[in-house]
């Protein structure tokens, strides 16, 4: 039986992990390779690096990080952040990344996803969607300036944002996911901007809406604070994989704890072998 995946995500800036990471017994808590090895030992199913390096010159550092990680860790590795050209993708794959995630560049030019999937295969193209609740509007209608999460009530949908969540696009997240599947995305990495960082659970409604609308795997992201949230992501959100940062970084819970909990609740997970 295909098991559900647990994917720790690391924010990498100028080649170093940012956001607190409180692994014990690490020589260097900011070194992505060290942290990747620790997660590998813990039985993480995949790893995700999000490159948040601001300056263009320093972007090459991620390639170095990927290359060093791939030399020591034998599990799938996804890298996202600032992927804009076929050249970017080729460089990341050559360095040792297995998948790349595309966000803003896909919205700016959807054909890019088609070209990338055609060139490198759908299996390595992840489309990342940052979505936020908004009032359900007629197609093409403008977003209201005064709308808030509360004012959405039950008649809400989700809007795609780009540029790290700063820029609204007017695109409906569920429709966008379907379109990206048609363009050759092999997987959707779905982040709820309303929930991200709040530690009170994934946006389950959003996750289920997208997961039911596409036939490719969906990774839930944004909001995990407890192990029950992971369970809900799989069962209520119908996610194929869950991404989490804080609960693992701060050692609120370890991956073996998460897997033991999920297994006991009847979710098929892989326990580390050997």
């Amino acid at each position, binding site marked *: *039986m*295909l*098991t*559900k*995946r647990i994917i720790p995500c690391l924010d990498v800036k100028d080649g170093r992990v940012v956001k607190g990471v409180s692994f014990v017994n690490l020589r260097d808590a900011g070194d992505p390779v060290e942290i990747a090895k620790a997660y*590998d030992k813990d*039985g993480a*199913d995949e790893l995700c690096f999000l490159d948040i390096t601001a300056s263009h010159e320093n972007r090459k550092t991620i390639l170095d990080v990927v*290359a060093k990680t*791939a*030399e020591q860790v*034998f*599990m*799938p590795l996804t890298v996202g952040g600032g992927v804009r050209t076929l050249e970017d993708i080729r460089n990341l*794959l*050559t*360095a*040792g*990344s*297995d998948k790349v995630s595309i966000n803003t560049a896909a919205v700016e030019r959807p054909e890019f996803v088609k070209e990338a999937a*055609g060139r*490198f*295969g*759908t*299996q*390595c193209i992840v489309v990342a969607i940052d979505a936020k609740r908004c009032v359900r509007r007629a197609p093409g209608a403008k977003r209201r300036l005064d709308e808030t999460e509360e004012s959405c009530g039950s008649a809400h949908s989700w809007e795609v944002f780009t540029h790290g969540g700063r820029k609204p696009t007017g695109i409906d997240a569920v429709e966008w996911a379907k379109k990206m599947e048609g363009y050759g995305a*092999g*997987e959707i990495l779905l982040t709820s901007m309303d929930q991200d960082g709040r530690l009170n659970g994934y946006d389950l409604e959003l996750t289920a809406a997208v997961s039911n609308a596409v*036939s*490719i*795997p*969906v990774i839930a992201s944004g909001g995990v604070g407890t192990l029950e949230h992971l369970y809900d992501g799989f069962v209520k959100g119908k996610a*194929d*994989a869950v991404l989490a940062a804080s609960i693992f970084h701060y050692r609120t819970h370890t991956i073996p704890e998460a897997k033991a909990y999920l297994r006991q609740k009847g979710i098929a997970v*892989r326990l*580390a*072998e*050997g």
Partner: protein
Amino acid sequence: MIAIIDYGMGNLRSVQKAFETVGHRAVVTRDPRAIADASHVVLPGVGAFADCMANLEQYGLVEPIWKTIASGKPFLGICLGLQLLFTESEEFGLHKGLGVLPGRVKKFPWGLAPDRVPVPGLREGQAPAEPEPVPRLKVPHMGWNGVTVTREAPPLRGIASGEHVYFVHSYYVEPQDQSVVATTTDYGLPFASSVWRDNIFACQFHPEKSQATGLRIVKNFGEWS
């Protein structure tokens, strides 16, 4: 020396690193002479079937692959490198493969609209009384799944049924001769997740991405003679 065939597709570095980590020397090459001189040969691959075949032809690698297989030296196919060994693939039309193993590469029927999913055991013209429950599984089949070992191929030494390996694929192989199947894996249907015939071992999963279990297979392959 192990030769990893480079035909411009896929992430070969991780395959090479996996071999090096378990103590085997490996080179990434498209030189037919290096392939002929190697003690073991690996055909990796990701991407589309037709593109990969086109690249193999363009680089003049089809003949060297046939020769190396005929020579009897251990040969490992990974993912698309498994599929390419078969007669033909249904990926984006019908495409000829290397034809080393008789059989066809087919797409998982899941993820399609329910009315396009074949309902087993239904006679022609017979309508089901109740809508049949249709497995709605995601395609690609992506993630960690278990293997059931049916024949203990030398590279599978020490691998037990139920161990998990990493998959990412939308197509699976259906060998004409089922006796070549070495492991099966269940994804809505049981499919051949690896095959073994003589000096050929080929797997749909990625041993180079399957942590300890995968590295053991890589190590075993390098020790196979």
